């Protein structure tokens, strides 16, 4: 009787298993990399209606974050400045600049400037700016070095795992309250700072929630 299956079919089951394994691994790796916020959000750098340069204003000119984002330490929502805030300086400085035309127009017409939102947590996540900055969590922890950005981009993934990293070990992110808005700050003595931070977490009663209802209210 002739062989029904040729000889090469002996290796076939092993090959099928191997191929399946390779496919599965690459699918999982692909989804993990391309479908997670670390890839899909980080680096998001939309074109804004006004080419506001954070590097120029915050770093070179040394404006405090709170000159424009003025309610970040009193409200859960960090405000984007009104056109009048821009005009406070730009009614004197660079009055005729074409880059500022939308600002002047908004100031004159009363219509808002349509800034493109970059950082957005989902509706089912509660985030309060004030409680973070008032307990020594700097802007830089979530927004990156915005003072170095000529065009702002999404720098951190803002995933839940990423939030929890810090909520589990707040002493690694906490800093003296007078350095919260100094995005370039690094401790002179990291070891001494860590000792201070561990104490500060206790003394300031920093108790970041790790339960679901802390953020998903």
């Amino acid at each position, binding site marked *: 009787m002739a062989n029904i299956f040729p000889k090469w079919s002996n290796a076939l089951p092993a090959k099928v298993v191997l191929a399946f394994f390779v496919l599965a691994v690459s699918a999982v790796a692909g989804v993990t990399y391309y479908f997670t916020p670390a890839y*899909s959000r980080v680096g998001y750098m939309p074109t804004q209606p006004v080419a506001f340069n954070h590097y120029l204003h915050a770093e070179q000119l040394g404006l405090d974050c709170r000159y424009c984002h003025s309610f970040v330490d*009193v409200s*859960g929502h960090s405000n984007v400045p009104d056109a009048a805030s821009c005009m406070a300086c730009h009614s004197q400085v660079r009055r005729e600049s074409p880059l500022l035309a939308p600002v002047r127009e908004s100031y004159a017409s009363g219509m808002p*400037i*349509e800034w493109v939102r970059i950082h*957005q947590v989902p509706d089912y996540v509660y985030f309060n700016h004030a409680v973070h900055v008032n307990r020594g969590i700097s802007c830089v922890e979530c927004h990156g070095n915005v003072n170095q950005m000529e065009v702002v981009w999404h720098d951190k993934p803002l995933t839940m795992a990423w939030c929890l990293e810090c909520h589990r070990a707040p002493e690694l992110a906490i800093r003296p309250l007078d350095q919260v808005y100094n995005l370039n700050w690094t401790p002179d003595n990291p070891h001494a700072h860590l000792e201070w931070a561990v104490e500060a977490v206790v003394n300031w009663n920093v108790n970041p929630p790790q339960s679901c209802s802390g953020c998903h209210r």
Partner: protein
Amino acid sequence: MKIEVTHPEPKPGEPVGAQYWRSLDEYADRPEFKEWMHREFPQGASELDGVNRRHFLKIMAASFAVAGVGLTGCRRPESYILPFSKQPEGSIPGLPVYFSSSMPDGWDNLPLVVETHQHRPTHLEGNPLYQPYGSGLTAQASASVLDLYDPDRMTSSYRGTRRITSAQVRDLLQETADKFAPTRGQGLRFW
């Protein structure tokens, strides 16, 4: 044994039961209706112009495949932040603003503290500064904040049953103000 029963075809002229009709068109037996019945579905529904069924399925399969490829390009839609042109004083985005107000309820004036979010009233409480009521409020007054979001709420001003413009309302109020100016508002009541 199997018995086959076949009804004989009704002979012409033989009554075959009540003739029912389902619409006036059918009863009138109009030619347009006959044509419509014949086609069973309204014009254009029974066929695709220029595309047969096989072609249609091919196109759909291809578009689903392309949609699958395109998933990697899916991003959340662009959204905007619209700050004020000139931020009103005392209004902080994200924090409620409380106003004291009052509300006539037919018996007397209820003192209120109104919670507003971005200038929209959301909640009413009694004003604790008014001792007799001790920050109390009636259920009706408490629920009345919902009237502001009632879709059936009046959208313009009326005098009697006549719609009037807001300019006319201003004129009317000015008239009233002029009329009651000599007595400094004595005898005037709004409700």
